């Protein structure tokens, strides 16, 4: 019964979205207030019904209602409750429903918090947002309906892919989708502004919080996915340049670029058309990401739906939205008059550099991801583009970005002096260089990657500290700085920490592979490990082979680790569960393998220096975004003109 209600609510939401797409758009064109006013209640009702539909699906998973095809295919009655819930979006249909739920959520939020927006702009934003909803409601209802029943319900389900039964992965897709779909707001604002024919500082101030929120969610989502890959997928890799990872990384890069270029529009009324283009492309890449994952065009770990009908449907959606928006852009872009003027060496110039490097980096990832398809179709060559390519082709741009960042972040607006900025940064530079030289001197015969990455990372972190200090000059005033300044410094420092950690981990990882006999200690780095015992046991929905490994260092007990090998009988799939001793400066990572003929067990041990810092840096970046988002000027902007919508053109814009 609840399932049918959910199905019905979904169809209703589809209908509401159609109304919300058409009526306000006509209203805004003809200046009919009544028609424009439809957008607001429609956005909220659309969200309400979509949420109801999603709730109904969650309910079906929670109660293990195997009369639903989707539940049968992706759940099992013995599965722990958390994974029953997360199983809702651990499959194609459910994850698309989550996607469209978030589209509706953002639309509803914009209708609630958008009181200060000019009435026509608001109507258009909500209409464009609804059009995205319409496309995906249609996609779900016509090709991927989650509410289909089975005529005969089986006694039990076929279980969720065991790799997905993990707390890290339970929350990875929702965050990622909040990020992807958050960019749809930036897209809607961009298209609405193009229809409106006007982009000003107020517009940028409206777009920036949405982009910032989307970017924060993407950062957390990507970090969660990477962390999950680190502890779950086997040997502690944290980034594989898998097409699906790239699909989330490209919008992240563009969202980061958009964040920075929107600052220029907001403060200086320049770079307008470029910012609009970025907003369109950022969401375009979210759609490309969806297409890559859903079409199975590039088969990879995550591609759970390999169905060409769906792929083509999404390709049409992608072509319609990006193609349509870009056409509109081509027609209207020249009407965007830039006002602010600036010299080459200036904050504006630095932000342009940031945009170039991020956009080119994104382009490299995009090109590399699609090249195998291009090569096969155009040149009849079957080839692969893997991590060695991306590491070689992408990393230089990030090194450049890191090298330029502290200088650009301290550059004054309009016109700056390079020498003066460099002079302020002399201690940061010296300290970072000293660290790198020290690291280089301490390591023997290893790659130069570690010291270089260490230098760039430390330089960015110290640069952020100098920037923050330079704004006040005294400790007391530091706390009174605007949150945006704190956010900027924190996010930049986070990037530095992540670069630092990736370099350290890549350059100084130690590995040991051996057959360990029970009770015989062996040495890895500074640690002595002993495989004490191996036992077989039973989990809730799996069988496990669990080793007990005690770790000692210079005569003291460090940790006891329990690496596991699991076998999920329903899904017929084994997984390895690494045991990790997390420490500040290094992780000790132990994996158990098969038993050998001589009675010993294959044991892999890794010492992974600075591993935690990779995700720590990501958290810092997200925290920086959050601080920036809570800055007073956004709160003021959100509250401005409450109750007098339509007349207020947001708060005045002082070009700092």
């Amino acid at each position: 019964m609840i399932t049918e209600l959910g199905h019905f609510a979904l169809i209703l939401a589809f209908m509401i979205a159609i109304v919300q797409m058409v009526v306000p758009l006509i209203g805004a064109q003809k200046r009919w207030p009544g028609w424009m006013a439809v957008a607001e209640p429609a956005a909220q009702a659309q969200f309400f019904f979509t949420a109801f539909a999603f709730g109904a699906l969650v309910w079906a998973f929670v109660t293990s209602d195997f009369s639903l095809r989707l539940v049968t295919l992706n759940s099992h009655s013995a599965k722990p409750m958390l994974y029953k819930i997360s199983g809702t979006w651990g499959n194609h249909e459910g994850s698309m429903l989550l996607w469209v739920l978030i589209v509706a959520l953002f639309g509803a939020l914009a209708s609630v918090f958008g009181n200060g927006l000019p009435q026509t702009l608001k109507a258009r934003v909500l209409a464009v947002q609804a059009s995205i909803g319409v496309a995906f409601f249609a996609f779900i209802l016509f090709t991927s309906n989650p509410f289909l029943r089975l005529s005969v319900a089986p006694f039990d389900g076929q279980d969720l892919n065991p790799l997905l039964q993990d707390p890290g992965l339970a929350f990875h897709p929702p965050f990622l989708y909040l990020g992807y779909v958050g960019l749809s707001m930036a897209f809607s604002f961009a298209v609405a502004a193009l229809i409106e024919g006007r982009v000003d500082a107020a517009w940028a101030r409206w777009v920036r919080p949405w982009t910032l929120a989307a970017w924060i969610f993407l950062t957390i989502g990507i970090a969660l996915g990477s962390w999950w890959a680190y502890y779950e997928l086997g040997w502690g890799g944290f980034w594989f340049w898998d097409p699906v990872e790239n699909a989330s990384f490209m919008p992240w890069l563009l969202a980061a670029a958009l964040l920075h270029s929107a600052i220029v529009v907001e403060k200086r009324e320049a770079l307008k058309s470029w910012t609009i283009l970025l907003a369109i492309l950022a969401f375009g890449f979210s759609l490309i990401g969806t297409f890559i994952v859903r079409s199975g065009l590039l088969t990879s770990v995550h591609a759970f739906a390999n169905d060409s009908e769906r792929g083509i449907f999404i390709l049409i959606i992608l072509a319609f939205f990006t193609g349509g928006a870009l056409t509109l852009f081509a027609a209207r872009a020249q009407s965007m008059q830039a006002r602010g003027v600036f010299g080459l060496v200036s904050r504006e110039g630095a932000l342009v550099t940031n945009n170039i490097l991020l956009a080119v980096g994104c382009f490299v990832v995009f090109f590399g991801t699609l090249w195998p398809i291009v090569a096969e179709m155009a040149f009849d060559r079957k080839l692969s583009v893997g991590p060695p390519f991306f590491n070689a082709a992408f990393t230089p741009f990030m090194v450049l970005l890191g090298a330029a960042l502290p200088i650009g972040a301290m550059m004054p607006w309009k016109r700056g002096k390079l020498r003066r900025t460099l002079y302020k940064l002399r201690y940061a530079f010296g300290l970072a260089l000293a660290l790198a030289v020290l690291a280089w001197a301490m390591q023997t015969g290893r790659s130069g990657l570690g010291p270089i990455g260490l230098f760039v990372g430390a330089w960015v972190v110290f640069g952020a500290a100098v920037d923050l200090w330079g704004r006040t000059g005294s400790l007391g005033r530091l706390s009174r700085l605007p949150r945006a300044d704190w956010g900027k410094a924190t996010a930049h420092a986070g990037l530095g920490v992540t670069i630092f950690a990736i370099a350290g981990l890549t350059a100084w990882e130690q590995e040991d592979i051996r057959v360990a006999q029970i009770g015989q200690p062996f040495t890895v780095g500074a640690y002595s490990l002993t495989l004490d015992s191996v036992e077989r046991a039973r989990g809730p929905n799996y069988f496990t082979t669990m080793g007990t490994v005690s770790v000692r260092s210079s005569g003291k007990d460090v940790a006891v680790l329990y690496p596991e090998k699991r076998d999920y009988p329903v899904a017929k799939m084994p997984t390895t569960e690494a045991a990790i001793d997390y420490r500040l400066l290094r992780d000790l990572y132990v994996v158990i393998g098969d038993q050998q003929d001589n009675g010993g067990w294959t044991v892999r041990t890794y010492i992974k220096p600075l591993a935690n810092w990779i995700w720590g840096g990501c958290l810092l970046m997200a925290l920086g975004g959050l601080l920036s988002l809570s800055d007073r000027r956004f709160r003021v902007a959100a509250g401005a003109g409450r109750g007098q919508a339509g007349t207020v053109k947001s708060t005045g814009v002082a070009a700092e």
Partner: protein
Amino acid sequence: MTGLKPYFSALTLTMVLAACIALLPTFSAAVQPDEVLSDPVLEERARDLSQDLRCLVCRNENIDESNAELARDLRILVRERLVAGDSNTEVINFVVDRYGEYVLLRPTTTGANWLLWAAGPLMLLLALAMAGGYMRARGRDAGAEGETGLNDEEQARLDKILEQ
């Protein structure tokens, strides 16, 4: 090792991909202790090479990390060639001759592939040129009639005053 050749013909690729899932349970995780060469220098080279070679039946894994049987065979093959005295390039060529270009995770620069490698730098140059043009235009506007209506000299004076 010759028995491996039938594994890879264009026709079987899709079948092989499907078989990948079936292969997984016959589990023999990544590099095994019995594969490791006694000479650490050769072993190091083998590991480096393994990271540039794709496991043909896997989704996006190199043979160094893969659990598949075929990846194990390839790892052993690489080590055999190294022990026989091949250079890194010779090993790679040997593997490519048998399994095709698809096996390379680091694409070559031959043919149209130069475009792949040059795409980033070319795009950077293009972007710099475009940004340069844009900024020069912005700078000229500043000279002619900026938003403040000041010329360069006046602007410089104003900047000086503001900085004090």
